[in-house]
């Protein structure tokens, strides 16, 4: 299924839900929708991955890019509810423990509230 992106703003946070294929074909649209958020002053972003049935390295690259840019801007970012396929590709990419990824949307929102940038779990010691 082609990538479908749904975006809503709650208080100061953007909650973006991805559905379908997060792949090379969907990349331009996803980058375009992320771009103004990532360029904003204090980006606070939750990306819900529960509808993603396929993600390739292009999709992983976009997620990592969003993480890096939000970090630069001292914003906050979290990802939630990965499907087994997303879990797998992040794991293979060695990113499972490096990204702020949460099992539930609630946990991700809580993390987003309590940090001005969401540190990756494993970097807490070095933060």
């Amino acid at each position, binding site marked *: 299924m082609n990538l479908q992106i749904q975006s809503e703003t709650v208080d100061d946070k953007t909650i973006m839900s991805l559905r379908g294929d997060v*792949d090379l*074909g969907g990349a331009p649209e996803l980058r375009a929708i992320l771009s103004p958020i990532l360029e904003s002053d204090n980006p606070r972003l939750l990306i819900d991955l529960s509808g993603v049935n396929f993600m*390739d*390295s292009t999709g992983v690259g976009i997620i*990592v890019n969003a993480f890096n840019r939000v970090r630069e801007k001292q914003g906050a970012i979290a990802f939630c509810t990965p499907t087994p396929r997303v879990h797998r590709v992040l794991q293979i990419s060695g*990113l499972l423990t490096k990204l702020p990824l949460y099992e539930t949307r609630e946990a991700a929102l809580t993390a987003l509230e309590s940090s001005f940038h969401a540190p990756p779990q494993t970097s807490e010691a070095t933060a």
Partner: protein
Amino acid sequence: MVNSRTQKTHAASLPISRATAPKPKPRFDGSDEKVVIQIPAHPRYVRVVRLAAAGVASGLNFSIEDVEDIKLAVAEACNNAILHAPPPKSGRLPMVTITLLPLADRLEMRVEDEGRLPSSGVPRRKTTEASDEGALPEGGLGLLIIESLMDEVQHLTGMKSNTTLLMVKYLRAV
């Protein structure tokens, strides 16, 4: 469990572990049945290849997880072929050719484009470690993923100006 799988990774530069020396077309002998798919070098056709590869793989009785891994690997290979394909000639996109060879104990997949590998070889990423500034590396993941998912991976560069990626996935003994 899944960590043990990634240990099966072979470097792309390693020759295929077979008795005979690897040649550009080592395994497609005439008696085998192959499925060939040609797509224009455009991202919108990768899904067609994924679906076709899933059909061939599930016909070989790969597990559902393996079928998903095979789809991802062939998609990554197609992505690279599309990204590195030569520009359109007289408005016509170059083609990418995917060959799927279902064998008794394995699935072989070849993804061939009309582009060239860098003469310096394939620039590779060996790590997903964060930089000193804490930023995570964003690119160079494609081949890493393919090598994690497939049992054998090899770049073949023929005499023609084209690049072929050969990937092999074995059926697990049950």
